[in-house]
């Protein structure tokens, strides 16, 4: 094996993470290669630094009673989870929904279209030529129409008659 290959796996070698065969090869190489020995010393320094970093006393600085702290916290949360909305609030909420629905109905009642009859393509527009063949509503007489209803000329030969039954 070349020095470069050896140096790439020196960290694994130092941590004892290599297979036995490979570890033996590395050991044989190290016995006669000074530059790889030096590289191993560097890896050792890094490894020792890491061991210090993760093995130091501060690492056990997790509070001793961490389990108690967590249990206490989760118990404090419990009432929040089981908390129900107060009935007064619920009544208000349903009341608001009902009021909105009623208001919508009332407004639509106020602005409803009054019954109207549309007459298509009436020749020469005058109202007297209008025919209400199978109309379900009572056919108004011309005079009646003129008296009780609003007659609107939409186009030249289309009129809109709205009247009240």
């Amino acid at each position, binding site marked *: 094996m070349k020095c470069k290959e050896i140096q790439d796996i020196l*960290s*694994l070698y130092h941590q004892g993470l290599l297979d036995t065969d490979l570890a033996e090869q590395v050991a044989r190489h190290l016995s006669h290669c000074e530059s790889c020995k030096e590289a191993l010393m560097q890896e050792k320094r890094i490894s020792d*630094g*890491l061991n*210090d*970093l993760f*093995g130091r006393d501060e690492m056990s600085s997790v509070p001793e009673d*961490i389990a108690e702290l*967590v249990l206490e916290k989760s118990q404090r*949360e419990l009432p929040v989870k089981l908390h129900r909305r107060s009935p007064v609030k619920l009544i208000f909420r349903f009341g608001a929904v009902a009021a909105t629905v009623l208001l919508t109905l009332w407004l639509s009642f106020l602005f409803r279209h009054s019954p109207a009859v549309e007459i298509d393509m009436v020749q020469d527009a005058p109202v007297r030529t209008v025919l209400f063949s199978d109309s379900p509503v009572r056919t108004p007489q011309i005079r009646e129409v003129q008296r009780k209803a609003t007659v609107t000329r939409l186009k030249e030969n289309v009129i809109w008659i709205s009247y009240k039954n």
Partner: protein
Amino acid sequence: MVDTKRLRLGDEDAFREFVGETKRLLMSVSYGILLNTEDASDAVQDAYLRFWRSRERLDSAGYIKAYLVQILKNVCLSMLKKRANTVGMDEIPEQGRRENTSSRLDDKELVSRAMTVLKEKERMIVAMIHYENLDSAEVGEILGLSPSTVRSHYQSARIRMKNYIIRNFPEFVR
């Protein structure tokens, strides 16, 4: 090993026992990712709390440590995201300080800085291997990876750390 069934049923003694067994492992993983003792400790507490809340969903066939470490990883990552928007007081560089500090850094400090160039997964692996020398099979079991994947992650992490140290602190090689 704590019985998963007892944990799932909300047995507080089983939880205490479980925390005792795992807190050092959790702290090292958390510190490995966050590189700050206080944050790491907060993250560990948060992870236990989330674990305890979701105890009813524990799968008896699964490996609980792996589940716990996964929760911790998520907690740490969200802390990192939050931290990205704020800068700690000690992270603001003082003028004329930088050149002097590099020569005074000890190996531990140097290594801690080099950890910052690693990805989260690599940091977790390095942390677990150097915490009481877990071997690649144990680390793999916790992270759901094969031992050879763990080894290759560890190897590439160490190479990057070494390169970082040599590039930024050339006196290390001398």
